[in-house]
């Protein structure tokens, strides 16, 4: 059990913990024996080359991807015992923005707010600097603005766990700074963040997880 990166299961666990996760894409093993534990107020920064499984891991943490091996624990309880409760405590922003072109920016957020049981669309738009564009149909938004609209969903419903896949992609310097501030605020409020990024975000209390260490190819070499 002395494989690289294998941490013994945490006993006094609040927050999210993974034990010996593995991920298969097709026939290929992307990573294996991946473990970490994330306490309230902490950020987990996923790094690694393209194809090392950052997005796949985030989807596993969200409950969208299957766990091919290992366990995912929330406060010590496996999340698959109650997937609905797990969904209620996380917010996921993936590669795609899930923005509907025919709706305005505010309508996009209202649709998601009514699905998730949240509100405060105007505050969310203001946080991501989209206040002036609230009533513009989303098809007129630029790629970066659509990204910001996708990220604005994070602020609709207070949830402890944020899962972000390359959140800075396409954002300008001001929007990146705004996002950094929002992430820091979330951590201050004892939230948890797991994110994949190629841009250093210099978050307080963050741990880095290099997925290349868990790649079976690397371990064999």
């Amino acid at each position: 059990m002395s494989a690289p990166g294998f941490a013994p299961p945490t006993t006094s666990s609040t927050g999210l913990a993974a034990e010996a996760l593995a991920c298969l894409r097709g026939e290929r093993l992307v990573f294996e024996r991946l473990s970490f534990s994330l306490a309230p107020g902490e950020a987990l920064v996923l790094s690694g080359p393209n194809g090392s499984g950052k997005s796949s891991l985030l989807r596993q943490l969200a409950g969208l991807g299957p766990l091919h091996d290992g366990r995912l624990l929330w406060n010590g309880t496996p999340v698959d015992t109650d997937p609905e409760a797990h969904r209620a405590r996380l917010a996921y922003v993936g590669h795609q923005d899930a923005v509907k072109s025919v709706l305005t920016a505010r309508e996009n957020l209202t649709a998601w707010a009514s699905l998730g049981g949240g509100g405060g669309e105007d505050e969310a738009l203001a946080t991501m600097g989209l206040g002036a564009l609230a009533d513009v149909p989303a098809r007129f938004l630029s790629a970066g603005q659509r990204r910001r609209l996708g990220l604005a969903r994070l602020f609709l419903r207070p949830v402890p766990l944020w899962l972000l896949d390359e959140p800075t992609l396409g954002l300008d310097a001001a929007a990146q700074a705004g996002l950094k501030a929002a992430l820091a605020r979330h951590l201050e409020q004892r939230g948890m963040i797991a994110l994949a990024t190629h841009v250093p975000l210099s978050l307080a209390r963050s741990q880095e997880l290099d997925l290349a260490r868990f790649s079976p190819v690397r371990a064999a070499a």
Partner: protein
Amino acid sequence: MSIFFAVLRRDLMLALRSPAESLMTVGFFVIAATLVPFGVGPEPETLARIAAGLVWVMALLAALLSLDRLFQADYEDGSLDLLLLSPGQTEIMVLGKVAAHWLTTGLPLIISVPLLAVFLHLPLEALPALLAAMLLGTPVLSLLGAVGAALALGARRGGALTSLLVLPLFIPVLIFGVAAPEAAVADLAARPHLLILAGLFFGALVLSPWAAAAALRLAAE
């Protein structure tokens, strides 16, 4: 139940903003059915005998035409991930999408049936039975179609695959949907056929959201 109405409202709003898609389904239904007299000749007796069957076959094809957009757009822009992650049961979410699909395709089809009844010399006494049969049968098309559309997600030429998957399942609806107006014309009771259609509806209502939700989870992996 709130997720049902949230998804229903969202999808109806999206359909309202791009009405061409629903109108195209109805347009196809009307044009395809009016082509038949050119093919088989305009004799009222011939048309009257096949009118009910024609209306049903065209309705099946029109429903198929609209199925590929039921989940495909959400799958492509990443909304499907968020729908699967929204708190609440995925099966209820699927029901909301099916209800919106029926309201934007099945219901307009039914409304245009009286027009086609005139074109095709449908006996007047058959019309109430045909409308009742369609009112019970078209929701079954949406429910079973949702399973096929969910299974075909991610496949190339998904529309063709959906047709292969669901057309055989539509056969009972077609048989009893045509039997009801024919019984009315022959001065027999249409009620038994309508009751069987109602049975098919309730069976599909219980089973297909469950199957479609499982297929959607697979597609998201």
